[in-house]
């Protein structure tokens, strides 16, 4: 059973193609991460899954249903920007959203969720009194209060501090353990790496990555060196087989050409200073994201860049 099946969907706004011939299958019970630069089509895709927007071409099936609105009560949607009535009390707004989804006696569930998110004392305050993070949590409760089978979260972690991110993370994992399918979009690559069973990346309306984190990384091979040298500021230019050097302050990340020899790089590094850390690894999701989304700023190596395009799926 698939929670979402998208087949060759295209959506245009005027002359702009927001989503271009997209196909995607989300297995039930999984956590699926949507990544991609701003304006690449993530929100449009989520809105089409929610049937708020309708594709120009192609079909979308949700929880086995393709008819309009039949599955809405089984789906929960957290939009990118907060959608709460400012003048309403927190409890009233949650009850309203619960009733809209057909939950008749939701008071106990609302109180449970408020307590869990440390919001119990805000239950009778107006929404306008909440901080951004608190409103975000209230919005999340509104999304899941009716125990949906499919949960769509558009950037759920934006604006949350690490503690609240952690709480939300746990809630998402718990939803999955109860059998729900979770799709969320994010710019937080570390969070995506940590949470997602599958990663899907969309760039300029087209699918560029889709698969498990491991399968995606495998495509790129072990082409990344993490290096720390004693004495900061040592120049790392002119190393053999190194395409690009990224300085992260504490360490430097070196990207190797396909056939480069890591040992040769180490040999070239030793005369430049004391090497305290040397690690050959696969690229991080962050790195993969940047390689795809910012190909033009990299040094010239057209072959290397094509790895990330289109055929990345193993």
């Amino acid at each position: 059973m698939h929670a979402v099946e998208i087949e060759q969907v295209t959506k245009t706004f005027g002359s702009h193609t927001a989503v271009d011939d997209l196909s995607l299958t989300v297995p039930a019970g999984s956590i699926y991460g949507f990544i991609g630069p701003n304006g690449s089509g993530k929100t449009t895709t989520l809105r089409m899954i929610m049937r708020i927007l309708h594709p120009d071409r192609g079909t979308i099936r949700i929880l086995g249903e393709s008819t309009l609105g039949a599955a809405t009560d089984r789906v929960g949607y957290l939009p990118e920007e907060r959608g709460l009535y400012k003048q309403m009390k927190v409890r009233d707004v949650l009850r309203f959203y619960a009733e809209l989804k057909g939950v008749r006696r939701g008071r106990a569930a609302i109180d449970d969720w408020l307590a869990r998110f440390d919001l119990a004392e805000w239950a009778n305050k107006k929404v306008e009194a909440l901080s951004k993070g608190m409103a975000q949590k209230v919005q999340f409760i509104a999304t899941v209060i009716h125990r949906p089978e499919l949960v769509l979260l558009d950037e759920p972690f934006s604006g949350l501090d690490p503690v609240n991110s952690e709480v939300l993370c746990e809630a998402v994992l718990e939803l999955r353990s109860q059998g729900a399918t979770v799709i969320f979009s994010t710019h937080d690559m570390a969070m995506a790496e940590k949470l997602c069973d599958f990663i899907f990346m969309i760039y300029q309306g087209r699918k560029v990555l889709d698969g498990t984190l491991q399968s995606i990384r495998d495509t790129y091979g072990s082409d990344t060196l993490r290096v720390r040298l004693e004495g900061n500021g040592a120049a790392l230019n002119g190393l053999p087989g190194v395409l690009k050097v990224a300085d992260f302050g504490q360490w430097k990340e070196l990207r190797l050409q396909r056939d480069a020899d890591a040992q040769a790089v180490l040999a070239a590094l030793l005369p430049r200073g004391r090497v305290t850390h040397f690690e050959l690894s696969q690229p991080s999701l962050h790195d993969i994201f940047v390689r795809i989304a910012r190909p033009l700023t990299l040094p010239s190596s057209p072959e290397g860049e094509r790895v990330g395009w289109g055929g990345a799926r193993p």
Partner: protein
Amino acid sequence: MRKVLVIAVRDYLATVRTKGFIISLALMPILMSGGYLAQILLGGEIDVRERHFAVVDRSPGGELAELLRKESDERNRTGPVDPQTGKPQPPFTIEVVPPGADGSTEGRKRQRFQLSERVRNQELYGFMEILPEVFDVPKSPPADPAEAAARLAQEEAPLRYQSNHPLDDLFPKWADKLVNEGVQRRRLDRADITARTVATVKGILTPVRFDSKDLARKDPKTGDIVDSPEENRMLSIMAPFGLLVLMFMIVMVGATPLMQGVVEEKMLRIAEVLLGSVRPFQLMLGKLLGTVGVSLTLVAVYLGGAYLLAQKYGYAEHLPLAVVSWFLAYQVLSVILYGSLFIAIGAACTDMKEAQSLMWPVMVLAVLPMMVGFVVIKEPNSSFATWASFFPPATPMLMMARQAVPPGIAIWQPVLGIVLMLLATLVCVYAAGRIFRVGILMQGKGAKVGEIVRWVIRG
């Protein structure tokens, strides 16, 4: 349908629970009648500072100017008050200005200009001029009114007053009366008519007293046939006018917040969450239902109150149950009709400012029936009143007013009016639904009129 109700209830409570609503519920009647009350209370209040006037008397002897001066001195001595209300009035001081040596038309004009300059310099409040012909008995006017008007236009009036206070008639009225009395005395003297004859003629010429009354009725207690009380005549005008104003008010108070609500839902991205649960048309229907609820609350308070008062104090015939029922039908339809227009405007705009500038055509639609309301109530069966009341946006106000004027109108008219309104309302809701569906998710910029029309036609 359950979801539509959930939205309707929320919208209803969101409007009714606000302090603004409760305050306006209480204040509206006060504000509406406030203007009238203020006029009654403050109507007699005038500026009582001394006013300075010039009088040029060109009549032989110049006795009229002297008469005015003497009378004004007398008036100032006793303390000038309004004889009807007893409120104080400003004292008048009169400066008798001798006519210029040049009595020709040009000479008179020059003197008038000089005096006008003095009024402009605020030395004078105004000035009066009495021409030499003032004592002449006018020839009886020609029978043909056009000829009479032509003659009047040619001749100069023997008594004229000039000032830059066009609305203030306190002095001219006072002076006019005195001058006329003086002139009459002189004319009677000249014609050698005795005081006794004058009294007889005056008695003969007194107009017959005339009274306009409401229909006769039987007193419910004694069974005697009596005249209706005088205020009934006023009430038969007040009831239709009140209903017209109430209908307008309910459309404004009830339907305009819809536009605000839709803009808020758009700006706060609430629409997106809602559309994750309901279809756009359900959302719009829910909002319209909520507004109908709000308007019914207003009606229950105002019309219900008026109805009970009318029953209690014996004016029930001016507010029959049939009229109240028609009012309810019109009011529900008009709130939906105007409400759907306001929703469409809200959906097509991205902020309140934009929405307000787009709403004026709808406001004009609502205000026009108010403006012609008085004409329609006065002549409810004129062809203008009849046709205007079949124009759906005006039907609730004008047809209602016509029905409330005794003896009412033929029943087919309100029935046809309701049918036409129903059709117009369906068209509006349909068009608004299509605008709403596209507009509610649009962000960034408002829609152009051309785009809105395209949404309606092509969806």
